[in-house]
């Protein structure tokens, strides 16, 4: 229990704030985008809303989250040798997540332009995969696995 109550040095707070805020914006954009796309059923306006949510909210959120992560990583003095497991999972989820996010944005754009149902199924699948990836990262980081 005392580990949970540990107060971190003040210099770590702002990078952590940037990291958490970025992650929240990323999730917010993803939820907004995925919801709009899920309810679109071919409607051009909702498809556009979904695409732009991913593009203009999720992606900048990812950038902020990743910048904050790298910043606090250097503040905490990790070097890559014997880093804790939760950190590795967090970075893996962030970096693989970028790939998933970019492909999702690309397919959402294709869906918006073509209206093909297949693109919708791919976007739904990728969004689910990405949310699962973020859930694993959330569990690993909150529980400080390893």
């Amino acid at each position, binding site marked *: *229990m005392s580990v*949970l*109550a540990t107060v971190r040095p003040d210099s770590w707070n702002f990078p952590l704030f940037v990291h958490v*805020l970025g992650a929240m914006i990323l999730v917010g954009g993803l*939820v*907004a985008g995925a*919801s709009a796309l899920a309810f679109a059923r071919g409607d051009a306006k*909702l498809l556009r809303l979904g695409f732009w949510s991913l593009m203009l909210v999720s992606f900048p959120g990812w950038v902020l989250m990743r910048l904050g992560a790298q910043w606090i990583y250097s503040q905490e003095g990790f070097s890559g040798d014997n880093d804790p497991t939760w950190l590795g999972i967090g970075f893996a989820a962030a970096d693989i997540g970028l790939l998933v996010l970019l492909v999702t944005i690309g397919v959402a754009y294709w869906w918006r332009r073509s209206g093909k149902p297949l693109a919708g199924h791919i976007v739904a699948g990728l969004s689910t995969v990405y949310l699962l990836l973020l859930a694993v990262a959330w569990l690993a980081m909150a*529980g400080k*696995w390893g």
Partner: protein
Amino acid sequence: MDFDQWMLALHVLSAFSLIAGLILFWVLIVVGRNIDTPADTLRLGPVARVGNATVGIGMGGTILFGVYLAFAIDGYAIWDGWILAALVLWFVGAELGRRTGAEYIRAPRKAMELEEAGQAGPNPELLALNRTSRGVLLHSVTSLVALLILIDMIWKPGA
């Protein structure tokens, strides 16, 4: 992970759900500014319901797991200044959120009235309701309160 770590993880997840909902509503507010027809207004309804659900889960989870953690963790107490500040901000945010919701429900209600009256075309009154500046102000202050809670949780002033 022990039980308290799960409670902390769920507290954090709830906070993510809350902020995700607020961001979703920002997206809808921006999009809504160009909407002047009943059909387009009502089309946003299912997405708004996702926002309502995430904000509801977020509000409930943050207070429930947060209060549990304040009692369960040795180093914290419910009367710690930063925890009391978070509680006050949570109640202020809840009230502001309720008022924001009341402001933005007026547009879909008007849209339903117009649809029932057979008026499917652009309507200036509906556009004005979708562009409500009072709603934007309320949602801005609600978002600011949520941001202050996040800052309070990270910096834990006085802890």
